[in-house]
């Protein structure tokens, strides 16, 4: 009897070591060597990190990069057949590979962009601060004249 229990206990371990079954989701890897935290930790706690960061950002203006959702979206973007990143509507989307399997519905992407923006000159990051550059040029010239 004891041997039978031992055999039952050992069985799952043996299965795990033999490799993960095909039905276990395999989310696509992000860019770079590693994620912002250990993989096992991220699997278990990423939702808490995101929620904590969201409250800090919205209410307190804290904008650290580590658990920023836009960072996840940029790094883990999956390209579709047309070569452009897929949106959350596609089952290939990074978040959906696990969330579809686990049947956990997320509503992040009802408001947040689910893929990196198409590169245009009009986006906030890319907008040239031409007025400020003009100011800077004048100021730099003035400072150079001071230094001479």
């Amino acid at each position, binding site marked *: 009897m004891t041997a039978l229990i031992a055999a039952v206990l050992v069985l799952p371990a043996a299965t795990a070591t033999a490799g993960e079954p095909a039905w276990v989701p395999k989310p696509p890897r992000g860019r770079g060597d590693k994620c912002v935290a250990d993989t096992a930790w991220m699997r278990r706690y990423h939702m808490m990190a995101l929620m904590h960061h969201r409250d800090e950002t919205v209410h307190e203006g804290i*904008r650290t990069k580590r658990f920023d959702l836009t960072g996840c979206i940029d790094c883990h973007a999956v390209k579709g057949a047309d070569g452009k990143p897929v*949106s959350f509507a596609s089952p290939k989307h990074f978040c959906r590979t696990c969330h579809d399997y686990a049947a956990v519905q997320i509503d992040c992407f009802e408001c947040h962009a689910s893929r990196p923006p198409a590169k245009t000159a009009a986006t906030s990051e890319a907008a040239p601060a031409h007025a400020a550059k003009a100011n800077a040029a004048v100021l730099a010239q003035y400072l150079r004249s001071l230094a001479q």
Partner: protein
Amino acid sequence: MSCGAKSGGGCGSGGACGCAAGRSDTIDNARRDFLRGAAAAAVTTLAAGVTLYSFGAEPAAARAPGEEVSSKVRWGLLIDASKCGDGCTACVTACQTENGWHSTGHPETDPQWIRTLKVENPINGTTFSLPMMCQHCTNPPCVDVCPTGASFKRADGIVLVDKHICIGCRYCMMACPYKARSFVHEPLEDQKPYAPRGKGTVESCTLCVHRVDQGRIPACVEACNDTGGGAMLFGDLNDPSSEIAKRVAAYRTTRVRADLGCDPGVYYRNI
């Protein structure tokens, strides 16, 4: 060019600018070296393009990304209606581009973070224009009425909607005396990453909080200075040395429906 001539007050923090007035032929080498170093440092910083606005247009004091907002700052706007061109929509277009809202083909319910108003005196027919948006009140009625706490005022005076908590009841829209808020009726996709907005939530001008947190000025103010009439000024009302505080102290300004006691952060001139 004299010290601080550009947009005024930009060099108010002292440093290299103050030295220009005292320059003479008797400058010793040590002082000359100091100035050289100061110039080099300033140019390097400016080349990186990070702190440009702290010299040019009214600065948003750059905070560290991990630093909390402080109530020492009170962000505000000063809008000179006499410089606001009739028919000019530079601020509205810039806001739409920056934050990703646009007409949905339903004018009654379209989102409207900022709009231009044309005001006419019915007696003599004189008109003027002004932009109208969230007035970022000190005592915001929208925050008072919100049943979930989604409508809130940040420590630095910016009034926002936390869309994670908003249930879309639209009570705040009714409470706002300025009709500054709108409701998203249709599902959206590909929003701006820094300006999330979605169906079923209320939204309004955020004073470009994502830019202010980076030390930049709101998109409408930038556009008005670049392609509009230069009617808008952004800055810290609590800082007596800021350009906006100086102008608010020096000139007669008006706040729309000041009688309501909301203490708006948006000041107007010539209305």
